[in-house]
């Protein structure tokens, strides 16, 4: 994403609200906020035409720090709410964001369905492999063996693999980034927003307070590899799945998969249907006539 039309004159600052973030100093989510703001400036939609939905968690506070219409909803339910918004008003730009727990633990049941419906949403997960807001319990992406307040003797379950799951669910756009590379992160987010259909961005966003050492920015900078540098072909889904298997051991950034010919979205199909059926409508106030015994 290099050549962007910035004729609208909006800058990242226009997307940041007056509310001061109460994240811990050094939290990765600051960088995500900055990248999202930049990406939005890149896209250039007016803030009031954007709906930004989240669940609950440190990361889920993010909508309140933007000037969009925000919805800091309940834990794990951002995707259903976002789908309702998009269907109610397909003209809106709808962003969804939250934590690894919000998205892949309590909210995990909603992800496949949002994806198979293929609404035009952008879903950003701030994956810190821990529960930040509730002070450091295991998250579904925590590495096996990790001792935390809720796993005194180390976890005994395999972590979730968000990238692989989402690819298996059939998402049309799957990418990863880290605030350790802010420009790269802003770029994939902007590309995700522009993608016509459900787009997923996993952001490795460190929790400085409860996260383990290997999940910190410093480490990211050491191990980060861009998929571009690997010559990965983002139109190859099986190759993407293969690379996604390395989640938790390698840190690949960039686009894993971008469907070359994006399929029709649910919101587009719904619009078609509405247009097709509109002529058959009885005026609302006469609806009872349908039920006259004739």
């Amino acid at each position, binding site marked *: 994403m290099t050549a962007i039309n910035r004729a609208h004159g909006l800058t990242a600052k226009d997307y940041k609200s007056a509310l001061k973030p109460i994240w811990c100093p050094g939290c990765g989510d600051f960088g995500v906020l900055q990248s999202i703001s930049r990406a939005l400036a890149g896209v250039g939609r007016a803030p009031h035409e954007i709906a930004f939905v989240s669940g609950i968690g440190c990361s889920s506070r993010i909508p309140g720090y933007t000037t969009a219409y925000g919805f*800091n909803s309940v834990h794990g339910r951002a995707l259903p709410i976002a789908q309702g*918004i998009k*269907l109610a008003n397909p*003209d809106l730009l709808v962003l969804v964001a939250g934590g690894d727990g919000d998205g892949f633990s309590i909210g995990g049941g909603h992800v496949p*369905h949002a994806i198979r419906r293929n609404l035009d949403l952008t879903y950003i997960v701030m994956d810190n492999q821990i529960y930040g807001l509730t002070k450091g319990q295991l998250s579904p992406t925590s590495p096996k063996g990790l001792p935390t307040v809720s796993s005194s003797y180390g976890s005994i379950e395999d972590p979730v693999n968000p990238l692989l799951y989402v690819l298996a669910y059939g998402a049309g756009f799957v990418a990863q980034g880290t605030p350790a590379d802010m420009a790269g992160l802003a770029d994939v987010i902007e590309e995700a927003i522009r993608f016509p259909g459900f787009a997923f961005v996993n952001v490795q966003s460190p929790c400085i307070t409860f996260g383990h050492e290997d999940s910190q920015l410093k480490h990211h900078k050491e191990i980060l590899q861009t998929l571009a540098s690997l010559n990965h072909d983002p139109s190859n889904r099986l190759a993407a799945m293969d690379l996604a298997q390395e989640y938790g051991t390698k840190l690949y950034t960039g686009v894993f998969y971008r469907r070359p010919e994006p399929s029709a979205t649910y919101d587009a199909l719904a619009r078609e249907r*509405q247009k097709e059926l509109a002529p058959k409508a009885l005026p609302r106030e006469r609806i*009872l006539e349908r039920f006259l015994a004739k």
Partner: protein
Amino acid sequence: MSNDLVIGMAGAGGDGIVSAGESLINAVAREGYYAILTKSFGPQIRGGESSCRLRVATEPVRSSGDTLDLAIALSWDDFLKFGAELPVGGRTTLVFESDSGLSPQDLSVAGVRPAETVAVPIAGLSKQATGAERSKNAVVMGLLSTWLGVSGERIVAGIRRKLGKKGDDVVAANERAFAAGAAYAAEHPLVRSRKLEAPLGAASGKEAPLKVLADGNEMSAAGAIFAGCEFFGGYPITPSSEIMHLLNGEIWKYGGSLLQAEDEIAGIGAVVGASFAGKKALTATSGPGMSLKTEMLGLATIAELPLVCVNVQRGGPSTGIPTKSEQSDLFQAAFSAHGDAPRPVLAPASVAESFVTTVEAFEIAETYQTPVIILSDQEIAQRKETFDPLDTSRLKVVSRRVPSEGELEHYARFRITESGVSPISHPGMAKGNYLASGIEHNESGAPTAGGEMHERMVAKRTRKLDPLKHERRYFSIEGDGGAPLALIAWGSIAGIAREALDRAAADGLRVKLLVPRLLYPVAEQVYRDFFTGVRAGLVVEQSYQGQLYRLIRMYVDVPAGLRSFAKPGSNPILASEITERLLGLSAELQRQRQNEVEPQE
């Protein structure tokens, strides 16, 4: 000649008994009769036993009645499986399949001798007329057409409409079977005639004015369309699914859309989203789904987002009895959310009221920016009922109050106003941007943990519902205004209470009846006024705990003699039982009076 008849029919799943009932109610509705049709099935999805009861009358009917006037058993075994749902009594004419080889003595119903017992070779007539037993239900329609004196033409026209798709042969066979039944009945008139009086106005010679014929689920869906609903999100569950089915056929036509979600949480989640986006939105479910929607309902309350949620009640708790009616979700409707989260709860007391209540629910939701729960029940939701076209002009279609240009200048989404209602913007509206949240917030929407702001916000959210308690239109009061005896009933049971009221009045009792359509918040003053002069009475409900009785007590000091008369679901409550109890209460009052007058020594 009768002006009010109850007919019960049962057979095996394939016998088409329910479809016969549907054809009949269609025909009698078109004739100008009033009617109610209820259906009941065994636990199997397909096959197993099935039954229906049809009540036909010349004046509006309010319940499906009790003892049958005419009982038709295609199979006696299947008939018996419905027990108290198809009660045979001394006034019943019992028609049964003679090919079953049973004799009238075999038709034992504990403690009852029917008025008349008639064996008809129903299967034989079908076979004779069509070569197969498949058209037994058409034979039954023919029999009834003659015995009741209902125009065969209408019924046949209905059969044609219904079976048209299946081809001319099928239609012709059924017409022949119908004719065979009609002819048989003409040759075998009933000893005790079951002919119906002509419907009101029939004498005029004009076509009877058209009636609405629908069930409660259809009317919930239609009410939503009328009210301007543009989004439905939900998940199938018996006995509510038909609301979704019907809306799925309709809502797109109005530029709306529908999401069959992955579960009830997502269903109402999408509704919350659509509402946030500025649209009127609906969800519908039954008990288990309500339990799952709890958290989202609380979110809608604190985020002050309008939405309507229909709960078609069935037997509980848990999976309970999915196919039978009950009124045991009232506590839940009022109190399931954590925190101080009052929300309006409405209940229709008839099929027609399902329409009205849904329109009112949207009015309340949008006016007060709150989730509204409608407690329908399986009985109302799935029974077909006729009624005269409603005067819809008195129904208010209301949209939420959006901020004016001026208000948008320094817009505060949750402005603390005197009424408690604040203007509400939605994405797409310039300058209305705000943060909606389930977290306690200040007037502008920013999160707060301050106790003082919390108190003001809870007070605002509670206060805004106060006007509802003074809307007398949600309460119907009938009977003797100064009566010392009172009845209170809601939902499908209200119809039975209305009949009981009439009977009690006929028995010389001084009784009045309150049917609240608004159950929560409890309208203290309405009840207090109603209780003036009341010394005893009954709150009649289909639950074990008598939930409305308890709910009223929370907020109102009730007359000392007010009792709960409650039975859990699928156990019918009969008008006669209510009347009997009223007589008992009256006797008790007289004893008390006596004690007052003649002091004990």
